[in-house]
């Protein structure tokens, strides 16, 4: 446990040494400053007039607060995860570089601890960045509109969980191929193309006659992590809506465990 934490810490240091995460932090700060400026320069009645949705004042305020939260959270889910995947995809290939991996493997730590340290380190970096923005938005919208729904804070966990699932895949591909480009491309393929496509398979499957293709699509739907549905859950949390189904969380967790286990298994068998 101590070794894993040490490696998690060094991964944090590595992440901050790379400019990507500093950039991410700077962008988050910039967004926070813009929102502060917008909130400071406008009167609360402007928002309630815009809504024109009837109901009591508090309900209107809450809806405007939710509007701002979704406005930030959904681009964070897509864009933030895009940047995070880009940043961590080189972690494992860099670890496995000749001359670097030798140093780590010559120490009294198991390979499993080493890989888990890298894994948790990456997750912690993303969580800190996401939590920074989410908590800041929650405080700002809370102060401005008096809406303090704590469920919104769970969207930081939901985004981090989605990242953790994809990062397990990055680890597996990184260990198996030592290619950051391949790890990044496959992860983007799942996140941006396959997952949305498979979620909407009911719509396009009617155009396809082959049962085999339909069966493959169905099978892939259950195998591949359901990042699109995780996006929907994140949006529901931002809006304060109840989460309809935890099935995407369960199946994505299984994917995470399986890919991470496979990554550790291959890492334990490889010669360096």
């Amino acid at each position, binding site marked *: 446990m101590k070794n894993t934490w*040490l490696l998690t810490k060094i991964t944090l240091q590595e992440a901050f*040494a790379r400019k990507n995460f500093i950039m991410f932090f700077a962008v988050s700060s910039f967004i926070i400053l813009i929102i502060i400026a917008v909130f400071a320069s406008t009167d609360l009645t402007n928002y309630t007039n815009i809504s024109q949705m009837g109901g009591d004042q508090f309900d209107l305020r809450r809806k405007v607060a939710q509007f701002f939260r979704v406005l930030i959270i959904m681009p964070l889910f897509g864009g933030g995860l895009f940047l995070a995947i880009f940043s961590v995809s080189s972690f494992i290939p860099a670890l496995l570089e000749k001359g670097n991996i*030798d*140093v780590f*493997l*010559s120490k009294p730590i198991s390979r499993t601890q080493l890989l888990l340290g890298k894994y948790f380190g990456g997750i912690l970096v993303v969580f800190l960045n996401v939590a920074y923005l989410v908590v800041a938005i929650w405080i700002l919208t809370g102060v401005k509109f008096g809406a303090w729904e704590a469920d919104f804070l769970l969207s930081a966990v939901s985004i981090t969980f989605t990242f953790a699932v994809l990062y397990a895949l990055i680890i597996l591909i990184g260990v198996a191929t030592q290619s950051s480009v391949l790890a990044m491309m496959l992860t983007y393929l799942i996140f941006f193309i396959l997952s949305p496509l498979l979620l909407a398979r009911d719509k396009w499957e009617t155009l396809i006659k082959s049962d085999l293709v339909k069966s493959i699509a169905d099978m892939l739907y259950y195998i591949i992590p359901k990042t699109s549905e995780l996006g929907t859950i994140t949006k529901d949390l931002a809006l304060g809506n109840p989460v309809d189904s935890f099935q995407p969380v369960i199946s994505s967790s299984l994917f995470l465990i399986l890919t991470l286990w496979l990554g550790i298994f291959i890492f334990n068998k490889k*010669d*360096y």
Partner: protein
Amino acid sequence: MHAVEVNNLTKIYSGGMKSGRIAALKNFSLNVEEGKIFGLLGPNGAGKTTLIKILLGITSATHGDAKILGSDVSDYHIKKHVGYLPENHKFPSYLTGEQLLKFIADLSGYETGNINGRIDELLEMVAMFKWKKTKIKKYSKGMMQRIGLAQAMINDPDLIFLDEPTDGVDPIGRKEIRDILSHLKSKGKTIFVNSHLLSEVEVISDRVAILNKGELITEGTVDDLTSNRELYRISFEGDLPETILTGELAEYSLNRLEDKSYTLKVTNVNSLNDFIDRVRALHLNIHSIVPQKSSLEDMFISLIKESNGKNNK
């Protein structure tokens, strides 16, 4: 207990469809005594680094057993007592020298009340103290070797593996590294050195092994290996008459040297004793017989050529 015990170790790399299988080590056996400096020599691709990597669990053996400090190499806990300086190492470039040593000490499970004192002591020892707050990415090749040596010693290990420790280091730095190794030996540490620099290994090592194409060619003390058993320097009381040289002793390969002594080349020790008997029978007095030494480099080149010749047959 030996610091390193290797029995019938074989490592075969699968080189893919084109290159096939490559045997990096073939039935290799070796023991390294505790408290000694052991030099492993061999040309490029001999299997030296593969052996170290197997001993440290970085690479697995195809067959055979290997132990360090009495424990099987698969037991990673034993590495708490081991230090390692890899060849062409890459330390996290975003750390300073001081941070690196702290990190490696933590990773090595080194627990002491005064880690900062230990770090400063080692940085002083490798002449890197004034660079301790500088990021590693700014270090030169020589500085990287020095900090590498410091990290290999940070956990006060009993066994230290050094792969080309003086690579990229200037002559003064090499001398300093040799002194550090001698100091470690005086503290009872075992040091296992891989090096191309034969003259250095000759100076520092208690024992030496030569590896070629995955096979152990020879092993012994530097004195043993460099003593040429076939060549002796002989001096007699007074001059040896020319008639005896060309007459009774004509069958021996004797060459006169400038100081009136002779070199004698014999095929084995029995031939040497035959020669002595013959000389004594002639009532000549032998003043001295000294086996001649070749340098480690001469011996290395001759053994590798011989080994390659055998393998090519």
